[in-house]
């Protein structure tokens, strides 16, 4: 994986010292909160419901074991023994002291990590396919391009004060595992008819209060113009984005109001202009980056496992994914134990996952946007040993992509913006389905829960989505159906009036009943919904 060069390291170290001074000045009373807030936010430090919260960037979700170990150590040393992996492949600590914040950033810097640009109206952490470099279906590894864009967007002076936050995802497979079209810019690395590799650009997607699917604005950008094209997209947004209204400031609103065609025309014009100026980094930089992502030394070995232990066999079927090398798989470590808090991991669990990565996965881990962890390259021969250790640490839940694999935002338990709690719903629903034994039978079913309209829990993109709303000071939940963030992207539709907590849990059961009743051979929940439409579900819910 990528290693900092002297410039990367010097920049991050300088930022830590700058922040140490800023935090001290705040503690000494030389800065007011109004003056300090933008400075702490630039370093990922929020003030949340209970305490300060620190969001740590995990570029394209890739970590080595040293970094994961450091994250676990920070959880124990400065927080309350755990951290929360998020839908943007980052990590959040919930109980940080301002007095400790600079020391934490210094500890992060020692393992080439930081919290820069994890807040504010700048280009945020760039996300990618969590199976990048391992997937059997990818064209090439998208991460060198994500890394190039990371370098370009880090401290980019022109894009430090955009109209609003800006999120980019890069993938290189037809299967979209990064919700690419629900990003401000989604980039798919593709091959054109002439066999050349380039990038398709999708601009203006997003969730939040006005969800939008990004339209494609350019089918093919040559790879040696990738950064220039992204720069043109950002420039047009920076110039015309709505700075007058926070709720209309995202690029999705600009593209929608201006029209994709006119937006594209302006981008192309700007692009032509930028090409003359030569803003593209030299190809040598890309060539320097690429070797960091070279394949590890894969070895041939057994291609199947001993299935005599049914629990192990179930985990292999559910939680391992085909690898480009046939003696390997990518193994998913579920952070969704039945009744647990989606995405939370203790310091001990983080250190254990780090150890297992070192032992079994060439020192690499990935964070999934579904709040699980991936060991990307595991030898099939090592799977049983791996699973045995995971089981012992409550990390062996065999539920990838099932109704127990719920995405839930922090909700009212942690978040100051929330209307309702999300986590207790996830806990009760996973317990329910574990108890009634229907998880396997339901197959792939993506349930996503957000505690308010900001949609951090991706509820618009859930096969089943739940949104917390405030009903006269009490928690209430809207149910929606039919969303997807994958290559068959779609936005979920609301079923009708909302429910209280017990009601919505019952409602989830009801819609799964309708599905099981109506499904045809091989259909997922989403397929059945698309075929039969909303009406049968509505009738079952409200009549």
């Amino acid at each position, binding site marked *: 994986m990528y290693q900092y060069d002297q410039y990367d390291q010097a920049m991050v170290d300088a930022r830590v010292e700058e922040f140490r001074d800023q935090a001290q000045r705040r503690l000494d009373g030389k800065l007011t909160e109004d003056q300090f807030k933008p400075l702490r936010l630039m370093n990922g430090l929020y003030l949340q419901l209970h305490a300060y919260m620190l969001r740590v960037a995990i570029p394209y979700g890739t970590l080595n074991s040293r970094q994961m170990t450091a994250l676990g150590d920070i959880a124990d040393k400065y927080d309350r023994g755990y951290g929360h992996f998020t839908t943007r492949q980052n990590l959040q600590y919930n109980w940080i002291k301002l007095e400790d914040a600079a020391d934490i950033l210094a500890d992060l810097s020692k393992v080439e990590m930081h919290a820069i640009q994890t807040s504010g109206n700048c280009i945020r952490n760039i996300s990618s396919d969590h199976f990048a470099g391992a997937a059997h279906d990818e064209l090439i590894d998208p991460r060198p391009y994500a890394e190039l864009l990371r370098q370009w967007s880090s401290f980019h002076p022109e894009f430090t004060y955009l109209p609003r936050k800006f999120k980019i995802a890069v993938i290189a497979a037809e299967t979209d595992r990064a919700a690419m079209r629900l990003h401000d810019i989604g980039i798919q690395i593709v091959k054109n008819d002439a066999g050349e590799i380039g990038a398709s650009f999708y601009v203006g997607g997003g969730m939040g209060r006005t969800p939008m699917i990004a339209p494609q604005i350019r089918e093919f950008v040559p790879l040696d113009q990738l950064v220039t094209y992204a720069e043109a997209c950002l420039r047009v947004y920076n110039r015309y984005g709505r700075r007058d209204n926070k709720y209309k400031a995202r690029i999705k609103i600009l593209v929608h109001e201006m029209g994709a065609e006119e937006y594209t025309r302006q981008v192309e014009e700007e692009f032509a202009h930028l090409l003359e100026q030569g803003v593209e980094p030299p190809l040598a930089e890309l060539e320097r980056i690429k070797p960091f992502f070279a394949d590890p030394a894969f070895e041939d070995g057994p291609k199947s496992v001993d299935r005599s232990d049914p629990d192990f066999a179930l985990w292999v079927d559910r939680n391992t994914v085909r690898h480009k090398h046939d003696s390997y798989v990518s193994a998913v470590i579920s952070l969704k134990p039945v009744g647990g808090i989606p995405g939370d991991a203790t310091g001990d669990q983080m250190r254990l996952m780090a150890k297992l990565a070192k032992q079994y996965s060439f020192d690499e881990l990935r964070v999934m946007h579904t709040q699980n962890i991936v060991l990307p390259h595991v030898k099939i021969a090592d799977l049983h040993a791996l699973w045995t250790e995971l089981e012992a640490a409550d990390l062996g839940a065999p539920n990838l992509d099932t109704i127990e694999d719920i995405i839930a935002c922090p909700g009212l338990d942690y978040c100051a913006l929330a209307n309702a709690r999300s986590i207790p719903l996830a806990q009760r629903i996973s317990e329910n389905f574990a108890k009634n034994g229907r998880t396997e039978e339901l197959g792939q079913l993506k349930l996503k829960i957000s505690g308010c309209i900001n949609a951090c829990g991706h509820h618009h993109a859930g096969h089943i989505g739940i949104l917390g709303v405030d009903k006269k000071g*009490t*928690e209430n939940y809207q149910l929606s159906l039919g969303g997807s963030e994958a290559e068959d992207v779609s936005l979920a539709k609301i079923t009708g009036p909302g429910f209280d907590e017990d009601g919505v849990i019952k409602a989830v059961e009801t819609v799964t009943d309708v599905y099981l009743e109506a499904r045809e051979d091989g259909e997922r929940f989403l397929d059945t919904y698309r075929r039969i439409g909303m009406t049968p579900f509505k009738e079952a819910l409200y009549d």
Partner: protein
Amino acid sequence: MNILTGNDLKTGEVVWWDGQNWSLSVHDAVDVGDMGEQILAAEEAARRVNVPYALVASRTEEGVRPAHIKDRVRALGPTVRRDLAVPTASKTGWDWVI
């Protein structure tokens, strides 16, 4: 009653105005009547509290109960991590939050 809350500047902990000082227990909160704004301004300027605000609460048998669920979650801690509760939780129990 009108009560005041905020976060401790150094530690970030949720605190409540007890008439003299900032307490970790919501049950120590006092009614500030219409003095809220004035106290907040002075306390914030003295850096004894961070991002404070006034809210409505009622005095019940179990102690002081903020009117909004968000402030009750603040008072006790995440309902999903009862092991991390602010100590006053033992007095009220979790039904108090919802």
